[in-house]
């Protein structure tokens, strides 16, 4: 079922609501109930080297402020606040049910498809609130996502890549071809498929499909690319290729990577955020997190005492 918090491309009215109150209005009516639930404030945000979270980001691409998420009565995120900087790779690690995916999906408003989704707080892209000043379609055009399992559409390779731009209105054959080539190159897939763009995408191998999905996301020319455990179904060689692609993409895009694999986070990220049970526990440069974590819980997770 395809559901939205608000129909089509309109901005969502303030839909945040306390978990004890009635649900957000179904079709976009604006109610301004925004009650902050009484939670413990998030701890351990950022190290001295980070921009303070109170200033909506010097150099911050995405500013997240006291972001809480509920699905029905279950709270997935508790008042999370931090910044994501332009053209960095931010790795998000943590055990399952820590809220990593909920956070990621909040960034491009994919949680809107869940009718039980409630939120409070704010997320700003270049200073503009994603939920109050943008329509959901606009958000998704600027912030793309690559899912955990490769999910090609049952179309040809070319049609997969240009799916998004075509729907947006780009019709010129030449421009579409050029775009497809650019994105497939950026995803390190061009050489393998350049002769068979009309073949069904389903016939590619898992690793190739995932790179195709990356190309597909890049075709929308987003500013931020989200990766939700992108290598979970892939063999080591494909994983390496995807990681290499991510590092190359960093030159042009801001990247947020959610991963279960701490080693991968260590390999690829500039900064790492550790989430546990819906809270942001610690956020720091990669080397700092892995060599001298400040929070006991971070250290336990990284050293494998739980996970």
């Amino acid at each position, binding site marked *: 079922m395809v559901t939205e918090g608000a129909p*089509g491309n309109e901005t969502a009215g303030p839909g945040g609501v306390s978990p004890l109150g009635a649900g957000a209005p179904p079709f976009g009516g604006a109610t301004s109930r925004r009650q902050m639930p009484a939670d413990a404030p998030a701890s351990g945000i950022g190290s001295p080297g980070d921009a303070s979270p109170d200033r909506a980001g010097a150099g911050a691409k995405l500013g997240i402020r006291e972001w809480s998420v509920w699905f029905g009565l279950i709270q997935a995120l508790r008042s999370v606040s931090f910044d994501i900087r332009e053209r960095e790779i931010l790795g998000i690690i943590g055990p399952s049910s820590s809220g990593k995916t909920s956070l990621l999906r909040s960034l491009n408003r994919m949680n809107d498809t869940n009718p039980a989704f409630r939120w409070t707080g704010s997320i700003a892209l270049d200073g503009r609130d994603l939920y109050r000043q943008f329509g959901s379609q606009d958000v998704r055009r600027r912030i793309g996502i690559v899912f955990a399992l490769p999910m090609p559409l049952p179309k040809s390779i070319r049609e997969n890549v240009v799916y998004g731009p075509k729907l947006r209105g780009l019709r010129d054959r030449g421009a579409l071809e050029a775009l497809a080539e650019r994105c497939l190159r950026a995803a390190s897939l061009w050489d393998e498929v350049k002769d068979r763009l009309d073949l069904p995408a389903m016939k590619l191998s898992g690793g190739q499909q995932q790179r195709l999905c990356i190309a597909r996301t890049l075709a929308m020319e987003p500013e931020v690319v989200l990766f939700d455990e992108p290598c979970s179904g892939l063999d080591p060689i494909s994983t390496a290729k995807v990681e290499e692609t991510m590092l190359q993409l960093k030159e042009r895009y801001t990247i947020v990577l959610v991963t279960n694999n701490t080693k991968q986070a260590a390999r690829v990220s500039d900064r790492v955020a550790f989430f546990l049970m819906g809270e942001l526990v610690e956020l720091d440069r990669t080397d700092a997190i892995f060599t001298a974590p400040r929070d006991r819980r971070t250290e336990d997770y990284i050293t494998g005492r739980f996970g």
Partner: protein
Amino acid sequence: MPWQRWRERGIETFIWCCGVVSILFVILIFLFLLKEGLALFKTVSLGEFLGGRFWYPISEPPRFGILPLLLGSLWVTVGAIVMSVPIGVGSALFISEVATGWTKEILKTGIELLAAIPSVVLGFVGMMVLAPAIKSSFELPSGLTALTGSITLALMAMPTIVSITEDALTAVPQRYREAAFGLGATKWQMMHRVLLPAARSGILAAVMLGIGRVIGETMAVMMVTGNAAVIPGTLLEPVRTMTATIAAEMGETVRGSAHYFALFAIGIVLFVISFVINVLADLFLHRERA
């Protein structure tokens, strides 16, 4: 691109309209039946209509009692259900629990085949083949009787009963069967002690929908029951059902006459009966799923 947004809004409104249009149709059907049917009750009382024992629409003065028609429908329906439920449930049990592979496919196709036969064709064959057979077996003046109707209608209800019962049986979790086997039951014991009770609501729903199918049937019934609008004494006499009455007499009535209104009034009765049956069946189906 604002115009695109407008177009999208328009399409979504159209979708919403299509979604709720079925409610509109149900209401519309009821309203139109009421519009013409209620006019009858200016000249005839409700009690006389529902309880009157004589349906003489073209006599002078006309009598519009539908009791013989109600009973006709009732007799034929009861007969059909008595025949089709045991056989239908039995078939469903066999198909779902015993048959395998090719046998199962053939049986299911057979049921689909039966379901696909148009009612007028079944009525035709009933008239040409079944009626003479009954006539000679029971030595009657005519083979067009309630019994003939019941048998023919049982055939029409069969696919409904079989397929819904089959759904109900398949919906029973596998662990019920396994538990029964674990306690040493034979397949048959499992079926009648565990499975059937577990699928009870679904089977009831199947029976209700079968009843609805039978009560609503027109053509087959018209062709094989003899169309005598009298209260039947036994199953071996001709009867007239409500549906057949409407179909047979509408062509001869004058628009706006009492007879015309009376036929619509019968339509109201049929609609209400089928509405109640459907709501009940829906309740049973939902209770089972819950």
